Every structure is written in C-alpha cells, then in structure tokens.
C-alpha cells in the first residue's frame, strides 16, 4: 500500500531552476490523469440528442441483470473473505507459535498468484474442470464437480478468488501481527484457561481488527473488479455484466465504471484512514 514513512528531512531538492520542469511534469500528469476521468463523467450525463441528463445513473437499478450480477459478486466476495481469513490466520499464527519452517512455504504460496497471469490460471482451471468431468463421470464426485459450477453460486470462482486474495490477505495480516506480541498474548490467555477458540475470538482477533479489515477490503475490491476468470468460465459477475451491457447501453457502462472507481477509492481511503489511526 501507499504506506510511505514520513521523513523529517525533505528529499533531495529540485534542481536549481527545476521549478519549471517540475511544474511542466505535474501539469502533463494532471492533464493525462484527470481529463479522461472528467470527460468520461461528462459523457455519462450529457449527449447531443438529449442534452444534460442523469438518466444513465437512474437506469442502473432497473437495468436488466444489474441486481443479480451485483448480488452474485457481493456473495462471492463475502464467501472469499470468510474463507481466506479462516485459512490464512491459523497458518500465520502457527508460523509464530512454533513452526517457523512454515514461513518460506507461506511466502511462496502468497507470491505465486502475483506472478502467474490470471488468464493462464483460468486456462488451468477450465482444463481441470473438463478433464475432471471426464475422469469422475462414473463416481459420486461427479456431482460435487457439477455443484462447484452452479450458475447461481459458482463455488469454483470462490476457490480461485481465495488463491488470488492470499497475497493481499497475507501482507495485510503480516503487518498487523508484527505489531503485537503473539506468543505472549497466546501463552497468557492459555495459562488463564482460555480455550483455543476463545484465544482466537477474544485475544487475537480484537488485536488484529484493522489488519483484518484491511485484508477484507482488499479482497472485496479484488472480487468486485475481477473480470478475466469469471468471464472465461462463463459466469455473469458484476464486471462481466458491465461488458455485456456496454453493447446496448454505452452510457450506462461508463457510468458504472466511474461508480466502481469511486467505490474502490472509498474502500482504499477507509483503509488508509484506519491504518493511520493505528500507528
């Protein structure tokens, strides 16, 4: 994240007379980054035929498929967040409580998803599903494989998103765990008679509140924006639906793009605000 440590001294000062150069660079950057955004925003509220109208934003809720695709993405995000936290938190505690050999393993499995392009991942998944269906056709597992791909709630996407979210969850929680003395906390709680669930729920998790929130927010942003895997496996999640609707209503798809950018902004701002409060 954009966690930049404040330094007391200013960085190397601009080249003498470089004030101009700096202004030019900033101006060009401002034009490049702001103009498309502003133009896209105008595009959603104005066209030559109708003049100014907020219609594109008003149409969102009633657009065919919006509610179901958005709810699907939210449900996938919720399931992914719960599962990724349930899986990784115990593993990360284990590293600190007596299995340091696990650390390189965790580092590796939380780096690989960043290196492997999502398109190649989805090729692997769809090959596995296809070959799996052939191999398991005569066994009871076939039914499991089919229900994994249920159109109303494709659990196969949750599995893929859990893998993709691991790097973000790991880094967020790692920063949180660094700030507390896990070993002492756990031993104190255990010596006072707390059970393991109590230790987790009443000692560890309250101390990791902002790290857990960070991991959840990043996962939410990831799932709400993921297109490649959902599109190629053939599910109508929110980003896939935006592309579908763009064929018939260009204004609407741009309006949704702007809204999803604002949502991402809000999530990340909340995140950095929470991070700052902690430090």
């Amino acid at each position, binding site marked *: 994240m*954009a966690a*930049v440590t404040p330094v007391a*001294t*200013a*960085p*190397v*000062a*601009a080249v003498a007379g470089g004030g101009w*150069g*700096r202004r030019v*660079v*900033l101006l060009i*950057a401002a034009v490049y*980054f702001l*103009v*498309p955004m502003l*133009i*896209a925003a105008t*595009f959603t509220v104005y066209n030559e035929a109708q003049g100014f109208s907020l219609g594109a934003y008003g149409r969102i809720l009633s657009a065919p498929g919006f509610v179901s695709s958005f709810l699907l993405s939210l449900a996938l995000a919720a399931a992914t967040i719960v599962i990724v936290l349930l*899986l990784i938190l*115990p593993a990360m*505690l*284990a590293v600190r409580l007596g*299995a340091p*050999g*696990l650390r390189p*393993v965790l580092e590796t*499995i939380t780096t690989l998803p960043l*290196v492997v*392009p*999502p*398109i*190649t*991942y989805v*090729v*692997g998944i769809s*090959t*596995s599903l296809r070959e799996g269906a052939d191999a398991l056709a005569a066994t009871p597992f076939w039914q499991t494989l089919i229900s994994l791909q249920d159109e109303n709630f494709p659990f196969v996407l949750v*599995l*893929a998103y*859990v*893998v993709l979210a691991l790097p973000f969850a790991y880094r967020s929680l790692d920063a949180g765990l660094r700030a507390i003395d896990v070993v002492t906390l756990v*031993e104190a709680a255990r010596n006072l008679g707390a059970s393991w669930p109590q230790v987790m729920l009443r000692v560890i998790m309250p101390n990791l509140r902002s790290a857990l929130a960070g991991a959840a927010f990043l996962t939410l*942003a990831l799932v709400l*924006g993921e*297109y490649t895997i959902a599109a*190629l496996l053939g599910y109508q999640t929110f*980003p896939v639906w*935006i*592309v579908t609707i*763009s064929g018939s209503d*260009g204004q609407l*798809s*741009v309006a*949704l*793009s702007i809204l999803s*950018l604002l949502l*991402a902004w809000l999530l*990340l701002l909340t995140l*950095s605000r929470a991070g700052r409060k902690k430090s």
Partner: protein
Amino acid sequence: MTEVRARRTWGKGWAPAAPLLLVVAVAFGIPAVMLAVGAFTEKGAPGEPSSFGFANVTRSLREPYLGTLLSSVELSAVVAVVGALTGTFVAHAVLTSKSSALREAVLSVSGVLANFGGVPLAFIWIATLGNSGVVTTGLGLGSGLLYNFWGLALVYLYFSIPLMVLVIAPALEGLRPQWREAALNNGATTWQFWRLVGIPVLAPALLGGVVLLFGGAFAAYATAAAMVGASVPLVTLQIADALTGNVLVGFENVALALSLDMIVIALLVMAVYLPLQRRSSRWLR
C-alpha cells in the same frame, strides 16, 4: 517456552496450516499440473489415445501464435519503460514540492489508479477517445484512434505510471539530502551527482519497477478484451479465443502451450526482480 516448542514435532506445529495447504493444492496445484500436462499432450484423433509430445509448444512458438506473443512482449516493454521513466519524474516532482497536501493526494490517488485495471479503465478511455468518444467526435478525429498499439499503450500507462510512483517514492525519499550536499560541496555538478550517486542508488528500484510494470501489462486481459475491436494481436486475447473454442480442430491444447509460454516469460522477468529488490533494500534503510 522455547523448550516445549522445540520438541514439538514437525507435524503438530504445521497442523493449523493444513487446511490452507490443502486448498492451495486443490485450487492452485491441480490447475497448474493440468496446464503443464495438457501443454505436452497431443490429442489423438477421436477414439485414439493422446500421447506425450512437444507439438503444442512448438506450434505455440510459430505463426500466427508467435506474433501475438511478441506483440504482447513489445507492448509490455514499451509500457514498462515509458511508465517507469514517467512515473519516476512524476514522483520526483511531487516529492520535491513543498506542498505536503499534494504529496498525500498523489500517493493516495496512485494507490487507487495502480489497481484500476480491468473493465472500468477501458470504458473511461472509450468514452474519451473511442470511436464515438467525446474528444474523438468533438475534435473530428478519425476512428480507430484508440484501437492500435499506441492507443493500448496509452491506456495501459494509466495504471502503470501510478504503480511506478508507488514503487519509486520510497526509494526517492531514501535519497538523503546530505549525499547531495556532500557531492556539491566537493565540487560535483548536479548532473554528476545524479550520474554517480543518485541513479546508481535508484537503479535497483527503477529496474524493479520496470519488471513490475512489464508483468502488469503482460498479464492484462480485461482492458484489452473490453476494448472490442482492438486490432492489436495480444497473447492474452489469443488464449481467450482458443479457450472459448474459437480454434481449429486439433489445436485445442495450443491455449495451454501458450499459457505455459506466458508463465515462463513472467517467471524469467520475476527472476530478475527478486535479487534486485534485495539489493535496493540494503541502501534504503
């Protein structure tokens, strides 16, 4: 406490990680293995068994597939180099400005935009420079402005430059003013300072940024896919085509071989990054 822990067996300490390892093995391991196996499997004619061989991989490295692979690499390289240089200039301009509000704003905006790939990015640019975009129609520019190599590069830079700002900002802040003062007091010119001190210290972070930007542009699919009508052949689009059945009979597994090619390229590029990161962290404490 350490005594008890040290005696714990390997298995006991690792138990809490078992569910995670199992899920990763299933959800990541199986697809990876299937991909690798499939890339080296030749589908026999209907009714005949498949056999092991390099035909798919060889095919993926010939035309028309080689062209898409090279075009992807070229686009990613252009985006990486241009993005890294621009991002560094922007970061330097922002960090040396006296306004801390500007710094905060740019860094937080960069945090959002660096993750702003995918579908929304494509639509923002289509609304601006697409065939019926506001700027295109307003200025009477021709169509197809956005749907070529440089158009796509322009769009990709929109998330690459902010990523570079985030990567290079800590390195730029680690460049101590005292080093510059020392150099200038010893009679160095500003140019000499940058050539002999500044750039060498920044080099690992710069190259690391180039690698990250390359990886991001190389793997990008959603943006290019949403910009329907783009005439740039990209390996990601080619793989998607092949995966959705848009291929000649007998070429099904070429998608797998192309994916393998992509992973190899991504891994090679990453292999450059990791040692660099270690080197830069030595100076920037």
